[in-house]
């Protein structure tokens, strides 16, 4: 009898942004949903910078701004290329971002995810924490019909399983649906939370009220590896972190903590953190292989969403919005099939992929499909040589030392030419332009 009762419409594996988006959407449409999370609560295992992109969440919970724990809305984006002593920045700041419904927010994931999870429960999903899904259960035809967990007892059965299990995709791997994630397709990022009084943050970053700043940085800070650093302003803290491709770490012998320490000590970063107290540190993997690294997304009775599907746009530092969007679209696919009383087999679930094609998720990932490999293959050039050249050029250009500007121009150009050659630079430009299309 218990077994009959425990057959659900949908099992969602994982309670991160993609799993919560899926479970919420399904439960709200009246489906019988169980969400299984290995952590003590939603958010206890989750790590992100973190920026929340409003649009993706708005499409799921339109009134989220009234309730969700948000830190600051972002009004200024700073993009830096750095060498060891300087940075060259492009900043965009606009009071237009002080709009009624701001576009981007900094958030603290532990709090945000807890809130999102409370909405999932309110919508009527059964949320089971501290339970790890170990494998998928299949029937004789290979159709996934449920999951086994690390708790004793019977499997949990459902018509379809949504795998929102995160970057490693362990359940998918164990069940033979996908390969282990390649070290070239995943970044390891470390971050720290630095506490400062809000007045200090506001004075230091030229902010008022809940305005916030985002700094994204690349250059010699990654010691020749493919990666970026970041610094985000929260209400009373600063998130600072850096991440690089795992295979680069393996080759370089640089540890993530060394990298973060050096980044924090950089003369452009150190004054921003001065006097702060570190209260938290965290590390996480980020899938950065892009379009080409996307595993199989659907099969008989299963769908993959979020990080598990490599849904991260590394170029634009977007991930949680892709996660929420794929979670929502997967849920909408399942709801439609459920309403029509259709089987959740591979053929029917393929509709999820068709729906995704129409969203920014697939369009953006396809647009940048060549970028991850290009940057990785030329990491010395893009993360070392060019940042150095740009810094040196700026130094030459702005230093007033009695040398005439024409001579300075020539010196700058000579420096570029000697380091990268004219054909090399043209080639880089062409390759980037082609990969960017």
């Amino acid at each position, binding site marked *: 009898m*218990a077994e009959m009762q*425990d057959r659900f419409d949908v099992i969602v594996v994982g309670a991160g942004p993609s799993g919560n988006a899926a479970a919420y959407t399904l439960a709200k449409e009246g489906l019988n949903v*169980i969400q299984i999370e290995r952590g*003590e*609560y939603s958010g*206890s295992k989750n790590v992100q910078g973190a920026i929340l992109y409003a649009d993706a969440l708005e499409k799921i919970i339109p009134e989220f701004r009234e309730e969700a724990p948000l830190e600051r809305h972002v009004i200024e984006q700073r993009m830096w290329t750095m060498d060891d002593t300087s940075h060259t920045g492009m900043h965009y700041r606009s009071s237009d971002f002080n709009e009624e419904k701001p576009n981007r927010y900094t958030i*603290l994931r*532990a*709090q945000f995810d807890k809130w999102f999870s409370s909405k999932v429960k309110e919508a009527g999903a*059964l*949320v*089971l924490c*501290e*339970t790890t899904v170990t494998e998928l259960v299949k029937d004789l035809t290979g159709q996934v019909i449920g999951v086994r*967990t690390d*708790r*004793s*007892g*019977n499997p*949990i059965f459902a018509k379809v399983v949504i795998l929102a299990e995160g970057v490693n995709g362990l359940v998918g791997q164990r069940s033979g649906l996908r390969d282990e994630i390649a070290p070239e397709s995943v970044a390891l990022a470390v971050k720290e939370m630095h*506490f*400062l*009084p809000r007045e200090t943050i506001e004075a230091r970053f030229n902010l008022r009220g809940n305005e916030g700043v985002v700094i994204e940085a690349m250059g010699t800070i990654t010691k020749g590896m493919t990666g970026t650093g970041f610094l985000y302003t929260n209400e*009373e803290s600063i998130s600072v972190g850096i991440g690089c491709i795992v295979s680069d770490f393996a080759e370089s012998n640089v540890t993530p903590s060394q990298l973060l320490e050096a980044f924090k000590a950089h003369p452009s970063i150190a004054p921003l953190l001065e006097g702060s*107290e570190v*209260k938290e540190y965290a590390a996480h993997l980020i899938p950065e292989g892009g379009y080409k690294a996307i595993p199989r997304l659907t099969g008989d009775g299963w769908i993959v969403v979020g990080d598990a599907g490599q849904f991260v746009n590394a170029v634009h530092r977007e991930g949680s919005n892709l996660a929420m969007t794929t979670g929502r679209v997967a849920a909408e696919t399942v709801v439609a099939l459920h309403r029509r009383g259709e089987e959740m087999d591979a053929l029917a679930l393929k509709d999820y992929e068709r729906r995704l094609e129409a969203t920014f998720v697939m369009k953006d990932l396809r647009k940048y499909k060549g970028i991850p490999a290009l940057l990785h293959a030329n990491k010395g050039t893009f993360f070392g040589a060019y940042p150095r050249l740009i810094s040196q050029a700026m130094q030459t250009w702005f230093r007033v030392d009695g040398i005439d500007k024409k001579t300075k121009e020539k010196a700058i150009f000579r420096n570029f030419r000697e380091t990268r050659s004219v054909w090399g630079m043209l080639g880089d430009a062409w390759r980037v332009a082609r990969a960017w299309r």
Partner: protein
Amino acid sequence: MHIVVCIKQVPDSAQIRVHPVTNTIMRQGVPTIINPYDLFALEEALRLKDTLGATVTALCMGPPTAAESLRKALTFGADRAVLLTDRYFAGSDTLATSYALSMALGKIGADYGTPEIVFTGKQTIDGDTAQVGPGIASRLNLNQLTYISRIVETDLERGTITVERRAETGTQVLATKLPVLITMLEATNEMRRGSIEKALEAARAEIVTWSAADVGIEDLAKCGLRGSPTIVKKVFAPSARSEKAEMIEAEGNLEARANAVIDALFAKAPAVEDDLYAQAVHHYV
């Protein structure tokens, strides 16, 4: 048999942050857990349930969010969860807490049967007083067994219980009549992991929620801040220990060196030697 286990939801002390600016404890965003000492009490109750077929009720006084801790208790294997929550309880010290809990235990007795055993943990990690358990016992006139390390025997026919109580100088074996209140020592058992069926049941379960009025509290002056004579005079960080580390010189084979270390420890704490000796006798004789 009916067993009630009193549990408390506490902030996870490993994850508490002190606000760097105001120097106050930041409760917001700090995860909560079941007071770790209470888990030993709950597991002991569940073991009695396994062997004697008891019904286990988990009782918690706290804010509405404490329902999560009760749900966890259900996942472990408790049969029923009761949440005592009311804004009048805010700011309760041990006197007010034991009063409110004893009133709730009265209603539990009336509604679900008088419990033969009421369990609490040794103490909580946020209060560290170890007073609430004894407070409940004296209010309800229960025999109290504190700092219990083992339940030796429960004889329901004769209505007696025999337990081991760890004292500084050794282990006492005590026998008394039911009903009793037991405060359970730490590291006396290991909490089980509930089955998937239990976890599903817990996730769906209705938590019984009672207010002050529901449990028959008429005099609100006995509750919360008003009913709490304890005054916190000062909060300060403890100073570092003044005792210096000591180097123990030892030579010879492994056994000789181990003995040298043990001798040095026993010289400092003779009670530990007595205690270990008593336990060894218990196990091997």
